[in-house]
């Protein structure tokens, strides 16, 4: 027996054989090779024993009474399923037809009579190796399938969580936004967010993180938090961008950053303010003239520069009602054809030029991409926002937990913001938060914020910086106006804006008086107020807006001081 190959691990082996002498001989040989033996003397019994004992290997005579070996082999193989139960036919069948029949029935090998112990042991060992291999393959397949399911589940959960965050804004609710984003674009690092500011302006962010998969999506969460939080509190693009940049710089590894276009679309002021860091050029589409103004990237992506080096300068473009802003991710331009040629900006321009129905622009682009490449790409993001009238002002401030008992009703406060502060600080979100401590004002937070923003920017731009609003007569002057604004603000070294707030209880509820003073030369109030309320003109919209939204507006001190009032009724 020492000549026999060593047995790796004892197996349970079923021997089915109708000849009593052969069965006795074979079971003795197999047992002495270290295995456990089960026996059967016909096919039907073999199937029964297999079901009951699940042996790991079967030695089966081909010709047996009751049920022959072929039929028994078929049933046993079926019962074994995916598991490999090697089946060796015991036969001295000579004809090739009979041997083929054994293989057809699921036989894995033959053992001819008379039996040779060495060959038998070698065959059992070889079949055991195959059996183990199959078991390992099955185990690993199941493991891979489990991992795969786990990964998919994680992605689904991540996407569900993310969708809640990303879509907590107005991306789906706003009637003037159309977007196209492949369902798993998130896992390509694309991010699209939109939300209203307290004054009803809309902030939109289209971002593209470096990298792919979950790591690319992870950075999107803090970015979305900053975007929604700061937009809701009334922060402007500059402050929001600074915060996003600082946060991403702090949390992302060096080789990760986020290309982004952030814009503020204001129906009230008929403008779009844009910051583009590393995204492909978007466009402002002037529908009346068909002109498309490119929104070129002027900055490095978010998360690259330190806070000191970061540049938050934005560009401002006039828009008429019905004009559109179009943004896209690089998936559109970088779509490659079979020869690795890129789709590119020029082909996109051709699609723009050929587009007859503005509402079908996305479909036109998709068709052009498909025609170019032969198949659709899965990481394409596009968004188009139309400037629409009638955007309702909404109270979108954060919710307060207090019950109203602690609401302050009789107080006043004054601020003076001087040159160094005016250069780099936007006090409006802080002031709004302060005023929203008054419960009665929360209903009017949108109007309140709009009026504050208008009075503050009038005081800063026309008062302290001395800019002439008549510059904004046409698109060119418009750009010039904002260029001058940036230059003068950067060089500012004197001047101030004072804000006085007085809150008094009244019989009906309460009254808040807001006075804004500036250090500028003032203006001819009579003359400006005599202008018609032309809401479609680029300049002069601010004052008419203020007069529409507040209870009472009064100028004094030669236009250097303006006072508005907001009243509210006591809450039930």
């Amino acid at each position: 027996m020492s000549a026999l190959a060593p047995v790796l691990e004892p197996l349970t082996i079923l021997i089915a054989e109708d000849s009593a002498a052969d069965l006795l001989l074979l079971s003795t040989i197999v047992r002495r090779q270290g295995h456990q033996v089960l026996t059967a003397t016909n096919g039907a019994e073999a199937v029964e024993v297999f079901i009951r004992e699940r042996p790991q290997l079967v030695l089966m005579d081909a010709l047996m009474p009751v049920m022959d070996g072929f039929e028994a082999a078929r049933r046993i193989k079926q019962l074994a399923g995916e598991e490999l139960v090697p089946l060796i036919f015991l036969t001295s069948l000579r004809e090739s037809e009979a041997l083929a029949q054994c293989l057809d029935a699921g036989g894995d090998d033959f053992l001819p009579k008379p039996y040779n112990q060495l060959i038998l042991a070698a065959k059992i060992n070889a079949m055991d190796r195959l059996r183990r291999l199959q078991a390992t393959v099955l185990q690993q397949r199941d493991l891979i399938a489990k991992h795969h399911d786990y990964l998919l589940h994680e992605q689904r959960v991540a996407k569900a969580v993310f969708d809640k965050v990303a879509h907590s804004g107005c991306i789906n609710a706003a009637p003037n936004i159309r977007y196209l984003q492949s369902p798993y674009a998130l896992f390509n690092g694309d991010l699209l967010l939109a939300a209203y500011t307290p004054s009803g302006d809309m902030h939109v962010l289209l971002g593209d993180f470096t990298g792919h998969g979950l790591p690319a999506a992870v950075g999107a969460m803090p970015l979305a938090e900053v975007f929604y939080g700061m937009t809701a509190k009334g922060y402007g693009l500059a402050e929001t961008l600074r915060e996003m940049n600082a946060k991403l710089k702090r949390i992302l590894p060096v080789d990760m950053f986020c290309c982004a276009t952030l814009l503020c679309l204001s129906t009230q002021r008929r403008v779009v303010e844009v910051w583009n860091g590393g995204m492909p050029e978007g466009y402002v589409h002037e529908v009346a003239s068909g002109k498309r103004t490119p929104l070129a990237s002027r900055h490095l992506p978010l998360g690259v520069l330190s806070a000191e080096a970061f540049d938050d300068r934005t560009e401002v473009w006039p828009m008429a009602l019905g004009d559109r802003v179009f943004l896209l991710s690089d998936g559109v331009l970088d779509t490659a054809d079979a020869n690795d040629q890129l789709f590119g900006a020029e082909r996109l321009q051709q699609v723009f030029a050929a587009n007859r129905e503005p509402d079908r622009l996305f479909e036109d682009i998709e068709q052009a991409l498909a025609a170019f490449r032969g198949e659709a790409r899965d990481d394409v993001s596009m968004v188009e926002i139309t400037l629409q009238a009638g955007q309702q002002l909404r109270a979108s401030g954060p919710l307060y937990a207090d019950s109203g008992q602690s609401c302050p009703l009789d107080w006043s406060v004054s601020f003076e913001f001087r040159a160094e502060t005016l250069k780099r600080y936007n006090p409006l979100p802080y002031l709004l938060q302060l005023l929203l401590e008054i419960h009665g004002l929360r209903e009017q937070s949108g109007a309140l914020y709009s009026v504050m923003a208008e009075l503050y920017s009038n005081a800063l731009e026309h008062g302290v910086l001395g800019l002439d609003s008549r510059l904004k007569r046409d698109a060119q002057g418009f750009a010039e106006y904002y260029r001058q604004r940036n230059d003068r603000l950067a060089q500012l070294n004197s001047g101030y804006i004072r804000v006085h707030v007085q809150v008094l209880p009244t019989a009906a509820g309460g009254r808040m008086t807001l006075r804004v003073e500036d250090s500028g030369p003032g203006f001819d109030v009579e003359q400006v107020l005599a202008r018609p309320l032309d809401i479609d003109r680029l300049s002069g919209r601010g004052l008419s807006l203020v007069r529409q939204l507040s209870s009472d507006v009064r100028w004094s001190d030669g236009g250097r001081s303006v006072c508005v009032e907001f009243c509210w009724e006591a809450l039930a």
Partner: protein
Amino acid sequence: MVDLHLDPEVLSGLQEVMEGEYPKLLDTFLDDSQKRVEALRKARDDAKALGRIAHSFKGSSGNLGAMRLAQLCQRLEVESVGAGVGDLGALVDQIDREFALVKPLYETERQRFQI
């Protein structure tokens, strides 16, 4: 080899493998073979049955070293396909005689292990 009735090397190999079970194996073979010889006689007119019995008998006699017997069984198995029943009777007789010849040899071998 054709004239070898009982291969002594096979027997010594079997004894080594079977150890204490060796006499039982001989008993089983003799008993089994007796039944098969009788079955063959009964099935003289059924070629198909003759082929099936001859196939099994060939296997066990081969395993036990009854070389001539195994050879005769193989011939019967082969010729049972397509041949006339009349020609098979002679082969059955030959198998009968061959078993009668080897049976005492196995019995002698068996007697070495009387308990």
